[in-house]
C-alpha cells in the first residue's frame, strides 16, 4: 500500500530526483515532497507499519505513536519553511542536503528499534555537514570537520551502547532505556552530545554560525530536537536530567550577552531553550512531557524564524556582527517585524507560542516541588528577554545607525518568515490547536489572569533593566572579538598538547638516532681497528682469535660462578 511508505524515506528518495529537475519545476517538486509526506503521516494510524528482519532482529522502520507523530509533523513544517526560504538558490547542494537531512531526522523519529535509529542518526550527521561546507570559507571548512567528528562520535557511542544493551538484554526495541546499565549510559551520552548537554555543547555554537544563511535555518530545526525526542523516549523521568537541563538553561545566557556574532547569540539561546525541554524530560510527568513536546514544536518554528531574519541580513549585507549592524529597520521593515515576532515568541510573551509551551514546563516543575530548579528557570526566562528577545533585534535593526542600507529580503525569504510568524501567533492565540497533537491528554489552562500578569511583570521589568543598562552604558559593548568556550579545549589545549608531544618525540627521536648512530659508528670503528686489514686480530689466524674469545668467555663464566657463590 502506498500509504505505508515511511514519510522520511519520501524526502530522501525525492532528493535523488531533484538533480534532474530545473527552474520552476524543481521548486514545485521540492515543496511537494514535504506536503506529500505530511499527507501520508496524517493518514497513518498509530502502530508499527513497516518491519523487516535483519541481523537476526526485527527492525521496525515505521512505528507511529503520539510522541513520534508530533515531532514528525514539526520536522515536516521545518523543512517546508526551510525550502521556501532557500528557493532563491541556484545551486542544489543545500536543497539536497536539507532534504536528506530532514528525511533522516524524520526516519529516526519513527524508528522503533535502536539499529534503525543508529543508521538514521549517522545519516543526519553526514547529510547535514554539507549545509556548513556550502559556505565555502576556510573557517566553515574547519568548523564542518569539527562538527562531523563530534556528530559521528555521538553515533559511535550510540552503536557501542546498543551493542552492549543487545548483549545484555537481547532486546533492541527503542523504548525506555534508563541509566541502570553501561549500555544505557553510553546511549545517554550519545543523545547528550546531540542535545548539547553542558560541556558537550560547543559543536553547536561552533558550527551553526559558520553555515550558509539558509543552512543555519535548516540545521537549527533537526539535530538537537531529534536528541530531545530520543531523550523523551528513552530517559523520561531520569532525575539527572533535571539538573543537567537547569545548568543548560542558565550558562549559555552569559555567552549570549557578550557574543558579538548574532547568529552565535541565537545558537547560545537555542542551547538555553533546550535546557527547558531537558528539565521537562527529567520531571517526566504527563504535563512535563507534554510541555517538552510543545516547547520543541514552538521552539523549532520561532528559532527558525529568528535564524531566517539573521540569515536575510547576512544574505544582504554579508555580516551578522552586532558591532557592524544597526538601523536596518529603515530598509528592511518586514524582516524587522518578523524578527520581533520571533523574539516575542522566544521570550514567552502572552499570545505568542513560547508562552504556552514554556508555561507548561514551569508549571510541571512547580507541581513536583523542585523549588530551586523553578527559581533558576525563572531567572533563565528573564535572561532570554535580554540576550535573545531584545539584543538580537535591537543591535541588528535599531541601536546606532551603521549607515548600511540593504535591500529588503528576497520575496521567498519574506514568505517563509511570514508563514513562521503566522504559526507563532496562531499557536499563541489558539493553543488548543497544538494541544490536540500533544502525546498526552491536556488539562492545562495557560491563560489565567494570574499567570498572564506574572509573565508580563517578569518581561517588562527585565526589558526596563535592559533599557536602563544600555542608557547608562553598562551593557557589554559589542565589539569584534572571539569569546572562548569549551572549544578552546580541543582547538587550543589539545593542539598545544599534540604539538608538545610531537616536539618531545622529535627531540627524543633525533637524539636517540644521533646517539645510536654514534655508538654504531664507534663499534664499527673498533671492529675495523681490531679486525680490519690493519687490526691486531687480523694478523693472526682465525683459530688464534677463537682461542682468545674462548678464554675471555671462560673468564667471564668463572667470574659469574664466583660471584654467585659468595
Amino acid at each position: 500500500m502506498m500509504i505505508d511508505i515511511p514519510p522520511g524515506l519520501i524526502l530522501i528518495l525525492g532528493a535523488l530526483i531533484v538533480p534532474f529537475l530545473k527552474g520552476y519545476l524543481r521548486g514545485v517538486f521540492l515543496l511537494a515532497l514535504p506536503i506529500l509526506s505530511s499527507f501520508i503521516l496524517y493518514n497513518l494510524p498509530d502502530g508499527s507499519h513497516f518491519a523487516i528482519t535483519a541481523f537476526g532482529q526485527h527492525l521496525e522502520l515505521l512505528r507511529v505513536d503520539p510522541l513520534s507523530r508530533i515531532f514528525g509533523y514539526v520536522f515536516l513544517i521545518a523543512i517546508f519553511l526551510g525550502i521556501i526560504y532557500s528557493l532563491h538558490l541556484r545551486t542544489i547542494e543545500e536543497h539536497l542536503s536539507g532534504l536528506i537531512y530532514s528525511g533522516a531526522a524524520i526516519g529516526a523519529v519513527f524508528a522503533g528499534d535502536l539499529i534503525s535509529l543508529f543508521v538514521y542518526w549517522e545519516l543526519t550527521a553526514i547529510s547535514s555537514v554539507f549545509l556548513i561546507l556550502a559556505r565555502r570559507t576556510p573557517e566553515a571548512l574547519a568548523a564542518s570537520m569539527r562538527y562531523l567528528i563530534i556528530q559521528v562520535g555521538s553515533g559511535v557511542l550510540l552503536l557501542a551502547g546498543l551493542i552492549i544493551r543487545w548483549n545484555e538484554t537481547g532486546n533492541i526495541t527503542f523504548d525506555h532505556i534508563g541509566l541502570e546499565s553501561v549500555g544505557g549510559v553510553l546511549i545517554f551520552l550519545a543523545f547528550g552530545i546531540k542535545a548539547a548537554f553542558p560541556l558537550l555543547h560547543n559543536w553547536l555554537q561552533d558550527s551553526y554560525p559558520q553555515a550558509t544563511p539558509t543552512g543555519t535555518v535548516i540545521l537549527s530545526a533537526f539535530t538537537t530536537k531529534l536528541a530531545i525526542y530520543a531523550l523523551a523516549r528513552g530517559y523520561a523521568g531520569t532525575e539527572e536530567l533535571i539538573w543537567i537541563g537547569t545548568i543548560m538553561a542558565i550558562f549559555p545566557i552569559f555567552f549570549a550577552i557578550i557574543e558579538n556574532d548574532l547568529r552565535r547569540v541565537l545558537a547560545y539561546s537555542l542551547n538555553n531553550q533546550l535546557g527547558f525541554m531537558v528539565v521537562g524530560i527529567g520531571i517526566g510527568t504527563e504535563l512535563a512531557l507534554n510541555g517538552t513536546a510543545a516547547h520543541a514544536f514552538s521552539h523549532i518554528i520561532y528559532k527558525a524564524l529568528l535564524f531566517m531574519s539573521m540569515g536575510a541580513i547576512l544574505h544582504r549585507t554579508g555580516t551578522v556582527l552586532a558591532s557592524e549592524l544597526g538601523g536596518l529597520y529603515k530598509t528592511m521593515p518586514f524582516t524587522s517585524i518578523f524578527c520581533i515576532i520571533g523574539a516575542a515568541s522566544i521570550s514567552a510573551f502572552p499570545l505568542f507560542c513560547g508562552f504556552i509551551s514554556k508555561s507548561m514546563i514551569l508549571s510541571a516543575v512547580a507541581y513536583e516541588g523542585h523549588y530551586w530548579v523553578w527559581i533558576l528557570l525563572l531567572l533563565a526566562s528573564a535572561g532570554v528577554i535580554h540576550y535573545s528577545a531584545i539584543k538580537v533585534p535591537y543591535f541588528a535593526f535599531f541601536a546606532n545607525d551603521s549607515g548600511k542600507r540593504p535591500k529588503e529580503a528576497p520575496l521567498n525569504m519574506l514568505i517563509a518568515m511570514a508563514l513562521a510568524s503566522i504559526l507563532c501567533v496562531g499557536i499563541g492565540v489558539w493553543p488548543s490547536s497544538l494541544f490536540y497533537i500533544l502525546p498526552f491528554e491536556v488539562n492545562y489552562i495557560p491563560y489565567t489572569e494570574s499567570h498572564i500578569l506574572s509573565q508580563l511583570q517578569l518581561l517588562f521589568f527585565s526589558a526596563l533593566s535592559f533599557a536602563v543598562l544600555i542608557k547608562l552604558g553598562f551593557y557589554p559593548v559589542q565589539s569584534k572579538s572571539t569569546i572562548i568556550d569549551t572549544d578552546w579545549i580541543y582547538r587550543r589545549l589539545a593542539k598545544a598538547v599534540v604539538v608538545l608531544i610531537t616536539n618531545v618525540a622529535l627531540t627524543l627521536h633525533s637524539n636517540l638516532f644521533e646517539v645510536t648512530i654514534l655508538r654504531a659508528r664507534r663499534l664499527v670503528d673498533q671492529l675495523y681497528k681490531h679486525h680490519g686489514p690493519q687490526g691486531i686480530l687480523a694478523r693472526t689466524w682465525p683459530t688464534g682469535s677463537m682461542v682468545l674469545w674462548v678464554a675471555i668467555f671462560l673468564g667471564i663464566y668463572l667470574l659469574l660462578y664466583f660471584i654467585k657463590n659468595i
Partner: protein
Amino acid sequence: MSDNFTEDKISNSTGWLAKKINSSKIIWLLSLICVFLFVAEFFVHRHAEMGVDEYIGFYGAYGLIGSIFLVFLSHQIRKLLKRPEDFYDD
C-alpha cells in the same frame, strides 16, 4: 576596541532610539507599564505556585534584579574569556 564599561553605543549615535524616539522616553514608557503592572496585582486574583511568588511584586523584582545580576556577571565572564578576533587563526 577597548573593553571600557562606559563606552556607550547610544550616547554618540544618530540612531533611531537616540533621535526619533528619545531613549529616555522609552525608559519612561517602560517604567509606566511596569508601575501599571505592579498596581494591577492588587486587583487580580493571584494564585501562587511556589510560595515565594505570594509576595507582592515578586516577578517584577526578580526580573529586574535577576537580569541586572546576569549582565554584571557577564561582564566579569567576558574579562576572562575575551580574546582577539583572530584568536583561532593560524
